[in-house]
């Protein structure tokens, strides 16, 4: 596939005074990209606040829709995961928009860098958005809707949600890159993501279910954590292998 076009040894150039490194290390490039993402997000606040507010509103809607003051067990797991998933869709929709609209892809494609640095940077960005989202949404959920105490559930909840986030971030980034160059980018993002995320919903909800009950304060079944982990791994690899093809022209 694109193996030839990666990991190229840098070439000597005539100009010496510019003081440039030949081919910047991928780690540094990812750092530069992350910095840029953070700056743009801080200036525009277009993703994280929206996602968090959406999650809070969704909890309120669930209260009325389900006609319940509190939820437990599998209902709680479902409400939490569905809310997080739909809020994540908002983030996915906006992930590459700034780059596509302001020519950011070309600028990156012209640089002598590994192209997967963009994938890594964007996945980490989306992951960061999801973590911040959960820092708001999970306590809010515990406050508003959860019938059992949140505290004891937290350690395993954090582990499970982290696995869920990794999967959502990997798939979300791939789908976002696919959708951004289409005419119906806001529509295709969620349409493509949701079926792909079903196994994560399955693993995540089943894993979280026992944590959100009064009586059974057990750990999640390893089967579901393994499902999540394997799914994350496979799709991470697929995204890594295919991302280059989405960038070039």
């Amino acid at each position, binding site marked *: 596939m694109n193996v030839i076009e990666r990991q190229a040894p840098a070439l000597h150039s005539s100009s010496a005074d510019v003081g440039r490194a030949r081919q910047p290390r991928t780690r540094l490039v990812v750092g530069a990209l992350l910095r840029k993402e953070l700056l743009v997000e801080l200036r525009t606040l277009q993703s994280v606040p929206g996602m968090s507010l959406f999650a809070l509103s969704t909890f309120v809607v669930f209260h009325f829709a389900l006609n319940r003051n509190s939820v437990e067990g599998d209902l709680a797991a479902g409400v939490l995961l569905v809310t997080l998933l739909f809020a994540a869709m908002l983030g996915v929709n906006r992930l590459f928009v700034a780059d596509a609209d302001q020519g950011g892809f070309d600028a990156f494609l012209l640089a002598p860098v590994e192209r997967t640095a963009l994938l890594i940077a964007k996945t980490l960005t989306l992951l960061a958005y999801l973590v911040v989202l959960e820092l708001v949404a999970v306590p809010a959920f515990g406050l508003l809707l959860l019938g059992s105490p949140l505290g004891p559930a937290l350690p395993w909840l954090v582990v499970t949600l982290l696995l869920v986030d990794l999967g959502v971030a990997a798939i979300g980034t791939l789908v976002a890159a696919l959708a951004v160059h*289409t005419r119906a980018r806001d529509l295709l993002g969620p349409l493509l993501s949701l079926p792909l995320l079903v196994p994560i919903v*399955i*693993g995540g909800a089943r894993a979280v279910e026992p944590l959100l009950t009064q009586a059974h304060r057990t750990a999640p079944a390893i089967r579901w954590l393994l499902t999540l982990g394997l*799914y994350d791994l*496979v799709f991470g690899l697929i995204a890594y292998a295919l991302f280059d093809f989405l960038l070039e022209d």
Partner: protein
Amino acid sequence: MHGKALRTLSISTVVAMATALALVFFYAPLEAEQGFLQKIFYVHVPLAIVALCGFVLGGLLAIQHLRTRDPRWDYRSYVVIHMSLIFAVGTLITGSIWAKGSWGHWWVWSEPTLVSFLIVFLLYATYQPLRFAIEDPERQSRYASVFAITAGAFVPMNFIAVRLSTAYLHPRVLGSTSNLPAPMALTFLVSLVAMALLFATMCKFELAAKHTRAQVRALRRRLAGEADARRGARSAAPSLQHVTAMAARVQRGAPPTSHTPGSR
């Protein structure tokens, strides 16, 4: 390019389907519990298997497309996925009929195959809208291939995940395909072969039809002059650049030999 193979395929399909139908109605024994309705199993399960293999095949063809950049692979991938989607809808419909007949409901969540197919259908239903929403034909092919590979990898994983999740609810409602008595197994096998041949024939047909249409278009365009350059109509189907090149050669009087475009 497609003529001879098409004839052989069509004939074999007709023969196989006829045999299968004969076996289903006259040879296979009536199942104890479900009676005549059970015979839909000989349509439903082969549809399902062929559709699934079709989706995975679409992914493999897409890998070839990305590796070689030859638009013909994208074309095959498109047709195969398109056909598999139709077979998937067929699976859902026959499965639904079977569920209604033996369980009383048009839809059952406890049958993991059916549920997995619903998810897979929802995913692949976005394939054509995705293609249609990208104007640049080369980008369209490339993005479609990326999607086909991702979705193709997703199909088996989805099946495993859904099966895991329904394991707790009920045992399989619609019966498994193992431990089949010999007559049923034979009928099933023949039905499977017939379905696979039907799939292959229909794909060939679609490929041949599109190819011919594209040839005519290209020749017409060459004769009219390149003046009316972009016709503007967006399409979800991939373009056939190599056909244009072939048409150019034909017009110049050279033989239309097979030509692999693009540089690598």
